[in-house]
């Protein structure tokens, strides 16, 4: 059981590492400039491994650069969501009155159906990656805030919190030194969930034509392929539509595997490195 998780985790980590390398070193990896126009609708060949699209861009190069865009959006949204969500969750769990207010805001935001509203707003604002990031951030902080808060509510009842107050530790010190390290595992798991959500939601928006037409993410490549009537009557979809789709699927799988493996490391019931002290 635990062995299985480890293997899956390594596979997931491997997949993610490859994508991150591709994103970081895109200019070196991409065979062509993605904006360069060649003969449109070429089939795969040694000079264009995945052929060219309807306006003659090299599809492989587009996908390589698209990795950057897709991962960048997911990364930025997840990092900021975790920073904001964790801070608010810590404060909300530790200080009752402020916590009450923060949680009412969370409740309100969480009752809004997330994806439909994102679609509605996205169709009104100018589609750019920064607008998309801002849009995802409206929702991204709420889940981590709620989950971290409920964990803090139990953590703060442990005796070592009182013991630290007794030796003169301030509230800030206790939160930083004693509570935060104990919620980090949860934050990591939430980070992964948020990244998965953003990758999928961003692709979905692109698919609906609500993505940033300038910054070509995987979703946009897919979208343009989908809009081109030829794909329905020929094999073009195999090198134009399938590859970006697979990239999305594999990233999500990679994240899921890593999350699954971490659950084992973090869950004291599966393995007991630190936890299980509650009595």
């Amino acid at each position: 059981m635990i062995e299985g998780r480890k293997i899956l985790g390594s596979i997931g980590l491997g997949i993610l590492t490859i994508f991150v390398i591709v994103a970081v070193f895109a200019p070196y990896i991409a065979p062509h400039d993605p904006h360069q126009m060649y003969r449109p609708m070429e089939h795969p060949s040694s000079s264009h491994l995945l052929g060219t699209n309807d306006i003659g861009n090299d599809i492989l190069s587009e996908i390589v650069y698209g990795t950057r865009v897709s991962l960048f959006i997911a990364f930025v949204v997840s990092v900021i969501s975790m920073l904001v969500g964790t801070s608010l969750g810590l404060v909300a769990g530790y200080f009752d009155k402020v916590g009450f207010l923060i949680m009412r805001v969370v409740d309100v935001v969480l009752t809004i159906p997330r994806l439909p509203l994102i679609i509605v707003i996205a169709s009104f604002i100018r589609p750019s990656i920064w607008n998309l990031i801002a849009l995802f951030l409206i929702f991204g902080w709420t889940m981590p805030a709620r989950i971290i808060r409920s964990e803090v509510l139990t953590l703060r009842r442990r005796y070592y919190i009182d013991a630290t107050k007794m030796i003169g530790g301030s509230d800030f010190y206790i939160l930083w030194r004693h509570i935060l390290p104990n919620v980090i595992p949860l934050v990591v798991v939430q980070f992964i969930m948020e990244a998965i959500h953003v990758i999928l939601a961003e692709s979905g928006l692109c698919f609906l034509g609500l993505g940033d037409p300038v910054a070509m993410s995987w979703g946009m490549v897919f979208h343009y392929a989908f809009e081109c009537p030829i794909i329905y009557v020929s094999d073009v979809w195999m090198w134009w539509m399938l590859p970006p789709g697979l990239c999305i699927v594999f990233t999500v799988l990679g994240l899921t595997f890593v999350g699954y493996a971490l659950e084992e490391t973090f869950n004291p019931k599966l393995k007991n490195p630190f936890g299980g002290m509650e009595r």
Partner: protein
Amino acid sequence: MLEVLGLTKYFSSGLIRKRYLRAVDDVSFKIEKGKTLGLVGESGCGKTTIGRLILRLTKPTGGKVLFDGIDLFALNRRELLAIRPRIQMIFQDPDSSLNPRMKIGTSIAEPLKLHGTIPKAKRGQRIRELIETVGLNPEHVNRYPYQLSGGQNQRVVLARILAMNPDLIIADEPTSSLDVSVQAQILNLMKDLQKKFDHTYLFVSHDLDVVRIMADRIAVMYLGRLVEIGETGDIYDCAKHPYTQALLSAATVDGGKERIVLKGETSSPIDMPAGCRFHTRCPRKRERCTIEEPELVEVGRDHYVACHLV
């Protein structure tokens, strides 16, 4: 040294129709410097709450606590911070008294760091001293609490407390979660430390055998109230309160005497019975007991009992 006067704590529940749980109700006692007061009573009678009130970890409903003549409840934040090192508490469970993600060495260094009385350069020396004083092994500093036994963790807790140079230590069942053999070691260590540093102890326990070894005086609680308080010898030889007598008869040391088995359940601290709180289980209750609540009265030298029979 420590004087507790009419200490009261009600926990309220329910937003609209408030219900009060009387965890500690008008409790008064004194402890002299260098002495130990044993606080006994069954689970839920309010022992821990008294400790937390003295430490100001819980807000009191009423009463006063005088520590060296200083009214602890009247202190502001800064004054409280200044006096806190002198009063320390050992919590019920040694395992959750230490942060599971902190190495033992870091845990012991923490009070020195926060308190800042010892210059950084001398901290290492002080930590080694503390480790030796509580009988730990220097190589334990690089371990985590889960790698140590309950007894060893309790020693770590003691080391942290000693680092603050306290005058009063509230020990909340410090050995109840330990094996019997380890219990004796920790109790002996605590006695040695008391002699060495002239500590004053409020020693909370439900184990009368343990209290007998440790305490100079004993206070017996029932449902938030003190029912009897006196010198350890007096309590063991001539307990006056039916509840104390029942507790004693159940303890192993008094195996010779006839056991008094209490019938019935302890009343809930929310719906307290009128009159004497013990009357629902008291083998000797009278008519009067169900109406009037008994006050503590002196029955011998420094020996007080709250029962209508005396």
